[in-house]
């Protein structure tokens, strides 16, 4: 049994208290340890992803207790891909936070950042539903701290909304887990997948309620309409690097939906039939439309980016709710793209803020370095709106292709293409007001010592764009890999047998069955 799979959880969990206890007054030491930790996490994540790329499933039984009695961590292609994506994103976000000085505007940024990573990575790796709840809480409680980092009244108020909404979500999660446990007597995902099929057709009330509750919880995390109201204020008011890191948090919800609703409640299961195509798909289409309309209607740049996140999550969920191998493969390709593009846009909106009083979409005299920022915004908007040549365009093609031949193809194509047009308009409007009209403004008195963004900030944004470019250039290979991920998801027997049949303490001898 390899121990590497628990390293993405243990390393940040050790690093964070170390940063708080040993380096709390030395921002330099904090930065060094934080970056070193994230770099180490990237190499571990890459190692794990390489190890499972042949289709094997890594299992880690905590304290050697056999599933379903103990908690297990499971690494397959999907979870290791998400872990790798998170750690790579975290590196660039961290570089930006250091470069822009955001980490020094309040206390304990780096410690909270590491706890946040611990929660996200743990949520991707766990094979137990209650453990998933615990990791959700770890990532949430760290995100509460990060969300109100550097303080300010508007941020605190948005923080209250964010915390309250997520507390209700956590309570719902507990209700869902309670009903699942009452119905099946287990919370281990692999064990659940076997037991749910044993429930007779006349006793499905409880498990159907549980399935819907669980979907609601994950839909809150994924900001699916009509449960998306928490997102715009929270993401717009959060510090830019934090909002950029939060771009992966909506994907945690998407990941959980993919995992639970391909393995435990697969689409062909009698109990939950209708949940995916009747409920999830229309909700996803609505949130795609709302998100992109919000891009056009937003009055501030940070809200515009937040709505584009909702729209891109809608796109992801449309594709996921088809629950076909092609759909999941396209969704995963788009998840990688939209995480990187969304994070880059949040960072760029912080670059735009430099030299301006606020991010209201009104003309403002140009400041030093705004040409470069304008160029970056242009690239980011192209990526997010899904125009060629960047990967958003390819992702959208894959989405449209995977929807072809389904019953609702007309609806999906109309809404995907229509909302793309609206988002292009929204981004074009924002860009022309912010950058073009600026030149027709009277410069007024010289603002004097306007601090320009540091080189490191630009390096972080450029790094995200280079990843997007790589995602475009190697689209064939990436899509091939996501297709193999989807194939593994729709044949969960290897996963289930690895989890259930690996012996450990307390596992029953075979002949006792």
């Amino acid at each position, binding site marked *: 049994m390899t121990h590497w799979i628990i390293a993405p959880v243990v390393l940040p969990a050790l690093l964070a208290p170390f940063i708080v206890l040993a380096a709390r007054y030395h921002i330099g030491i904090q930065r060094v340890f934080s970056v070193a930790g994230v770099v180490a996490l990237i190499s571990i994540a890459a190692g794990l992803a390489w190890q499972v790329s042949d289709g094997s499933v890594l299992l880690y039984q905590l304290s050697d207790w056999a599933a379903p009695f103990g908690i297990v961590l499971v690494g397959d292609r999907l979870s290791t891909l998400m872990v790798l994506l998170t750690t790579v994103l975290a590196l660039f976000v961290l570089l930006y936070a250091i470069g822009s000085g955001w980490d020094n505007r309040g206390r304990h940024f780096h410690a909270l950042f590491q706890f946040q990573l611990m929660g996200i990575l743990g949520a991707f790796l766990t094979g137990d539903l*209650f453990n998933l709840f*615990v990791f959700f*809480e770890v990532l*949430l*409680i760290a995100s*509460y701290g990060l969300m*109100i980092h550097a*303080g*300010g*009244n508007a941020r*605190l*108020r948005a*923080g*209250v*909304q964010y*915390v*309250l909404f997520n*507390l*209700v979500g*956590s*309570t719902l999660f*507990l*209700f869902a*887990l*309670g*009903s699942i*446990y*009452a119905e099946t*007597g287990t919370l281990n995902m692999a064990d659940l997948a076997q037991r749910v099929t044993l429930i007779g057709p006349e006793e499905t009330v409880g498990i159907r309620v549980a399935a819907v509750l669980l979907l609601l919880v994950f839909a809150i995390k994924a900001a699916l309409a009509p449960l998306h109201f928490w997102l715009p*204020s929270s993401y717009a008011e959060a510090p830019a690097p934090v909002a950029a890191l939060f771009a992966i948090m909506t994907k945690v919800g998407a990941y959980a939906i993919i995992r639970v609703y391909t393995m435990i409640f697969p689409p062909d299961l009698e109990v939950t039939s209708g949940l995916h195509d009747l409920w999830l798909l229309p909700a996803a289409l609505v949130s795609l439309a709302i998100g992109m309309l919000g891009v056009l209607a937003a*009055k*501030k740049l940070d809200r515009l980016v937040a709505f584009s996140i909702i729209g891109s999550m809608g796109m992801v969920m449309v594709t996921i709710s088809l629950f076909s191998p092609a759909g999941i493969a396209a969704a995963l390709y788009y998840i990688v793209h939209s995480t990187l593009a969304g994070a880059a846009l949040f960072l760029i909106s912080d670059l735009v803020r430099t030299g301006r*009083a*606020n991010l*209201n*979409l*009104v*003309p*403002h005299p140009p400041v030093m370095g705004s040409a470069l920022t304008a160029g970056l915004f242009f690239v980011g908007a192209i990526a997010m709106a899904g125009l060629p040549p960047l990967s958003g365009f390819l992702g959208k093609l894959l989405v449209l292709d995977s929807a072809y031949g389904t019953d609702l193809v007309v609806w999906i194509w109309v809404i995907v293409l229509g909302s793309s047009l609206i988002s292009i308009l929204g981004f074009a409007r924002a860009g022309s007001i912010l950058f073009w009209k600026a030149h027709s403004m009277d410069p007024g008195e010289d603002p004097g010592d306007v601090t320009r963004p540091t080189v490191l900030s630009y390096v972080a944004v450029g790094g995200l764009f280079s990843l997007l470019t790589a995602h475009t250039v190697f689209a064939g290979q990436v899509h091939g890999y996501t297709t193999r991920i989807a194939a593994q998801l729709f044949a969960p027997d290897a996963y289930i047998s690895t989890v259930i049949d690996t012996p450990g303490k307390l596992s029953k001898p075979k002949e006792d069955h």
Partner: protein
Amino acid sequence: MELLVASAIGIMTAAGLYLVLRLRTFPVILGMSLLTYAVNVFLFASGRLTIGAPPILRDDVTAYTDPLPQALVLTAIVISFGMTAVVVMIGLGAFLGSNDDHVDDQPDTSTPKSEGQT
């Protein structure tokens, strides 16, 4: 006993939901606490209600109570307690800062145009 526990959970959830839908921070936090109490009892009941039975394997005992929900409830209590403390602190900070404890976004009175000219 089942009726008693079930109605207690139901009433607490209903009261909690009503309070959560209020506009100000304090009732909302009270409602959250009620909801977490309800869900804790609910989790406890998910292992079936048994009276006076041991949760640990022993000799010459045949009836057991399920030990797992008790462990789950313990985790849930600790987490919800901590979260409530966090939300009280953040809510207090927001109230003291802006002298307003509404949980919804108040209409933005400052127009973008006037801000842009300053």
